């Protein structure tokens, strides 16, 4: 590791001194401009012939010191910034953030708002997993699935647009409630979407899950044993793909998740295949939750009474929630003023990416894209 710590100029390929038996040891840069790194991530790979012997990820190309910005904004003003963390799951980011501020304030959110939150966050999980599924297929040379997934994701974005007026960065959650109620026909539209969506899942199976070429690419690749996953604090589908039944919606329930019936899909083959299956099954479970929430959706207020300037009492807490990528944590310190004294984001993809070198060691170079794809990174939240 030590000889790798000195950074090489981006884009260089350097032949290294021969060590030991190996005749073909060398360093190769992957990224930062590479279509399969899903953003600006640079991986320094140490290769022995076709095999990866070590990997050092370089992050920070999108760094904007999100946390410093947060310290200079009021609690309400931070909400739009949280959208830009994980821009593929803005609803989940909003959810995690407003929930942590509400806990700091000891605020109770109206029932209807809680249901709206869960419905939107679960739709967002489906949309995020769809985008992941499409691009993951694309990474592995299956273009068709990409088009199919984007067709369904588009419908979810239409639903979000009808609710919030935005297609990507919604800023729709408010501290103590929601910005607006659902439009009149929205619940019906959402039901129709679910009706349409359910039969689509077997289509994805036909395209990818049952595709022998796809299976050969992902089975037994990028193995992450359960023990390593816990040591590196991997979360979300990474943990569940390593055989650990751990989902914060079930194990540390927040909001109203304890009211719904859903399964936590777990696969114990610990490889890319397992993580693929977890996400594939989670879409069906999220659809189940949305369906139940729509059926139970109560009428009533959508916004609790909050002061115009939000000043949580002095104190600090770490609040976590399950975003599509894993454990999203917000660590807030309040000194009783209108802006947080300290605002820290524990981004799931940042921690999940830190385990990547462990998974890549011993892999073929050609599998690097598959393993990286299975982590499901979004650089917006990694670099913050």
């Amino acid at each position, binding site marked *: 590791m030590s000889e790798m710590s000195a950074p090489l100029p981006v884009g260089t390929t350097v032949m290294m001194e021969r060590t030991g038996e190996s005749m073909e040891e060398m360093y190769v840069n992957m990224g930062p401009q590479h279509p399969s790194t899903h953003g600006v991530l640079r991986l320094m790979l140490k290769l022995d012939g076709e095999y990866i012997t070590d990997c050092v990820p370089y992050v920070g190309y999108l760094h904007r010191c999100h946390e410093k910005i947060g310290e*200079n904004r009021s609690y309400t*003003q931070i909400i739009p910034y949280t959208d830009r963390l994980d821009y593929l799951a803005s609803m989940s980011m909003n959810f995690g953030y407003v929930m942590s501020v509400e806990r700091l304030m000891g605020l109770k959110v109206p029932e209807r708002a809680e249901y709206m939150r869960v419905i939107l966050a679960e739709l967002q999980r489906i949309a995020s997993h769809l985008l992941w599924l499409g691009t993951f297929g694309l990474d592995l040379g299956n273009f068709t699935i990409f088009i199919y997934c984007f067709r369904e994701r588009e419908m979810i974005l239409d639903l979000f*647009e009808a609710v919030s007026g935005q297609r990507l960065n919604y800023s729709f959650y408010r501290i103590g409630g929601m910005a607006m109620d659902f*439009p009149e026909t929205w619940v019906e539209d959402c039901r129709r979407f679910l009706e349409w969506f359910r039969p689509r899942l077997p*289509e994805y199976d036909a395209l990818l899950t049952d595709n022998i070429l796809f299976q050969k690419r992902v089975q037994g690749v990028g193995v992450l044993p359960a023990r390593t996953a816990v040591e590196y604090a991997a979360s979300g589908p990474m943990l569940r793909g390593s055989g650990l039944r751990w989902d914060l919606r079930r194990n*540390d329930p927040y909001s109203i998740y304890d009211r719904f019936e859903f399964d936590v899909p777990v696969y114990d083959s610990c490889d890319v295949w397992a993580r693929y299956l977890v996400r594939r099954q989670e879409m069906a479970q999220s659809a189940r939750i949305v369906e139940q929430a729509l059926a139970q959706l109560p009428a009533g207020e959508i916004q609790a009474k909050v002061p115009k300037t939000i000043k949580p009492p002095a104190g600090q807490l770490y609040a976590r929630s399950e975003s599509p990528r894993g454990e999203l944590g917000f660590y807030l310190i309040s000194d009783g003023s209108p802006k947080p004294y*300290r605002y820290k984001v524990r981004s799931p993809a940042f921690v999940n990416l830190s385990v990547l070198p462990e998974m890549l060691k011993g892999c073929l170079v050609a599998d690097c894209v598959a393993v990286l794809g299975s982590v499901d990174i979004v650089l917006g939240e990694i670099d*913050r």
Partner: protein
Amino acid sequence: MTPDEILQQLTQRFGDAITEAEVKGAEVRATAKAEVAWEVCRFFREAGFEYLNCLSGADWTSRLEVVYNLSSLQQPAKAHLRVPVPREAPVVRTVTDLWPAANWHERECYDLFGVRFDGHPDHRRILLPEDWVGYPLRKDYADERMVPYTEYGMEEKLPRAEGEKPAAKAPPRPAAAPAAAAPTTPPPEAPKPS
């Protein structure tokens, strides 16, 4: 172990080195001196806290602080450990040997707060460029490009250049969202793939 038992054992074992300790809900909250930080972490690790949720820093102007958020996949107990370190020589022993997850967290804490982690296997900046000067999350860090905080609605009171007009206030939002005309429908007869 329940949080109360953990707290009791912790204070018994480390005595004066634990300056503050309480149980809040399922969470053990403790403050430990920097000299014993690693030993306290090992105590938590052995007490079953095998999952390092978060490691972060905080700047209290008189001192810096490293904060560990720990939990377990087996028990509902959580831990929140704070370790104050002097501002002039902020050094604490690394916990990467207890939780490898701490690797990137500690690099980030070093990057943004300037806390050094003794024995860290890869002690470099992570988010900022290697040649960056200063530690941005310290309270005394100054950068002229930072936008100052203003109270919402106080924009017109900001100092502005001669002759510049005050910014127009946004019109109030309509009370009820216009209902219908939501073009959200998934197409009823979308093309069926064959």
